[in-house]
């Protein structure tokens, strides 16, 4: 008899596993059944958000950038804040799917597909914002190098150009990695469906039949994709942070920004995975595959990154004091003054990102679904305000006191923010209902293989 190695047979503390490969298929395929009222309400809510966002953008295109609240000196407002927020959200997916794959982390299996989908849709959402911020969105192709008569090219020495390349690369690689991972699972969906739906999945599955040749090259490529995606996780938000750190603006010009931004991105991304997966697992009854064990591990990631963020917040104050630079000292003092224009945003950020996650140091709260959901939502709010605090306060309180100004977003900007949230959730909900949001193939790898024992 040939030797069969059982992968991870009876590790303690794991979620209940299905007994057979077929059972896994049947469990995950249940998402294709008639949608529930809760799901339809979610889609309707997300769609309403998209309509609000679309209407706001239409107003901005019609009347010009004046309808957005950004004005001198705060020329970067909600659009750039929300751009950085969604890029950050997009980080956890690739962290979970690539880095945790390379280190063979066992808990990633149940959550990585949904996290990858979150990454793709979050970056899709983030990509809207530079275009929105342009005003003349039809000129967006100017971001990319293209041959032209006067040989006018991009300034590749600018961090803004680095960002265009970093985010485009991250999006492309994430989509390819995501799609390649989906191919065998879409094939399973194809083989369990009929009619036009079968044809749809058939085209997307690229005729996948699980032959030894297909698996062999697929697994080799998957490993390389993970190896490519892993440094991207660390580089993308570092590049985003250079949009700020390369400028001499007080409060931005700091070498601590790259690790600080990467930690913040992973923090918000993991919190968003909890916020997304928990209602989904109740909606689609995925408790066998995604449960407290996964949420607790995600919460631990948040605890670690929250600690790093807290350290970074403190270190910014230390460096501004130690630098003896009056502009740096002034902006940090002003940010933390409760009665100052954005003092409330600073303390909201500290509460959400440094204090609220401390609740998870209690195992009881870390394993309680209500507490997990509430704290994860608080973290997401806090991380949006972190970007608001960094971007808006530094610009509104720049070098020259004569230019100091109070910025508050207009209703158009709030509309676009609501729209971006609706856009993100709309795509995620559609995906979760139409595709395997739990990775079928990798769940099967956790199942004890069927062995007869004697031939």
């Amino acid at each position, binding site marked *: *008899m*040939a030797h*069969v*190695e059982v992968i991870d047979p009876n590790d303690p503390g794991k979620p209940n596993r299905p007994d*057979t*490969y*077929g059972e896994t*298929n049947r469990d995950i*395929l249940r998402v294709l059944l008639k949608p529930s009222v809760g799901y339809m309400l979610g889609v309707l809510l997300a769609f309403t958000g998209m309509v609000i966002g679309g209407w706001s953008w239409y107003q901005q295109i019609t009347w010009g950038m004046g309808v957005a609240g950004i004005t001198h000196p705060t020329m970067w407002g909600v659009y750039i804040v929300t751009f950085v927020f969604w890029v950050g959200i997009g980080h956890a997916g690739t962290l979970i799917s690539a880095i945790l794959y390379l280190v063979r982390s066992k808990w990633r299996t149940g959550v990585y597909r949904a996290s990858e989908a979150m990454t793709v849709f979050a970056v899709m959402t983030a990509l809207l914002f530079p275009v929105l911020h342009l005003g003349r969105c039809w000129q967006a192709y100017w971001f990319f*190098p293209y041959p032209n008569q006067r*040989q006018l*090219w991009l*300034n*590749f*020495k600018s961090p803004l150009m680095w960002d265009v*390349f*970093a985010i*485009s*690369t991250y999006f*492309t*690689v994430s989509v390819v*990695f995501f799609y*390649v991972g989906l191919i*065998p699972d879409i*094939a*399973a969906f*194809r*083989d*369990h*469906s*009929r009619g036009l739906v079968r044809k749809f999945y058939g085209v997307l599955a*690229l*005729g*996948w*039949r*699980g*032959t*030894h*040749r*297909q*698996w*062999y*090259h*697929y697994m*080799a*490529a998957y490993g*390389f*994709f993970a190896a*490519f*995606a892993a440094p*991207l996780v660390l*580089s993308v938000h570092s*590049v985003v942070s250079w949009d700020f750190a390369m400028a001499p603006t007080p409060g931005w010009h700091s070498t601590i920004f790259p690790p600080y931004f990467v930690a913040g991105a992973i923090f918000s991304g993991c919190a968003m995975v909890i916020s997304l997966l928990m209602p989904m697992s109740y909606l689609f009854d995925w408790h066998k595959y995604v449960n407290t064990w996964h949420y607790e591990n995600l919460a631990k990631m948040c605890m670690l990154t929250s600690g790093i963020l807290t350290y970074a917040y403190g270190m910014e104050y230390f460096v501004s004091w130690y630098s003896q630079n009056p502009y740096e000292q002034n902006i940090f003092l002003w940010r933390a003054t409760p009665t100052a224009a954005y003092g409330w945003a600073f303390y909201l950020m500290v509460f959400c990102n440094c204090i609220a996650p401390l609740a998870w140091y209690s195992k009881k709260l870390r394993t309680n679904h209500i507490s997990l959901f509430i704290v994860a939502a608080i973290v997401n709010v806090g991380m949006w305000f972190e970007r608001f605090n960094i971007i808006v306060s530094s610009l509104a309180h720049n070098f020259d006191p004569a230019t100091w100004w109070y910025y508050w977003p207009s209703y158009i900007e709030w509309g676009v923010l609501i729209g971006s949230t609706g856009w993100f959730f709309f795509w995620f909900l559609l995906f979760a209902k139409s595709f395997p949001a739990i990775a079928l*193939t990798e769940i099967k*790898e956790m199942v004890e*293989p*069927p*062995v*007869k024992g004697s*031939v």
Partner: protein
Amino acid sequence: MSSAVRVKAVYNHLDCMLTGVDRLKRAGYTGFTVQAPLPRHEIEEIMYEGRPSPVRWWTMTGAIIGLTAGWGITSLTHSTWPMINPGGKPTVAPVPFAVIMFEATILVGALFTGLGMIVHAGLPSYFIDRSLRDPRMTDGSFGITFTRASSAQQEAIVELLSKTGAVEVTTGDDTFYEVPNDRV
């Protein structure tokens, strides 16, 4: 002259299927396809005997092309207007260009990896032999299929596979599996 025939064995157990593959290889048979609903390293080991996939060469080629393209696009475009040096940096500035070169390396390397996988895995395989289009292989079963066995060998192959715990051994048009109507 003998004509080509199809022979297919379906297994519910991994070890039985591996035994089937092992015995086929020992008997000197080649040209069969193994199917599985998940990647198993045992199958890879027995079929490829530890040889690494050539996809890695695609990855390396893509990464080198990306790195070169990143260097090329940054230095050549900036050299078009050498009198303009933003930030006081040299016209060809390795440090800021390193970011673009890194991104281009990753991007082209990943795209070439995908291309390599598609080429070597034979994707898209919409028109793969009908005997291999078996929905049980994405569910929970394993399969060994000869899409073009010689008719002289047919009997010996069927006999060999039947003794390895296959739940079904079929030949000719019987290897075509009809999808039941009770699917979702």
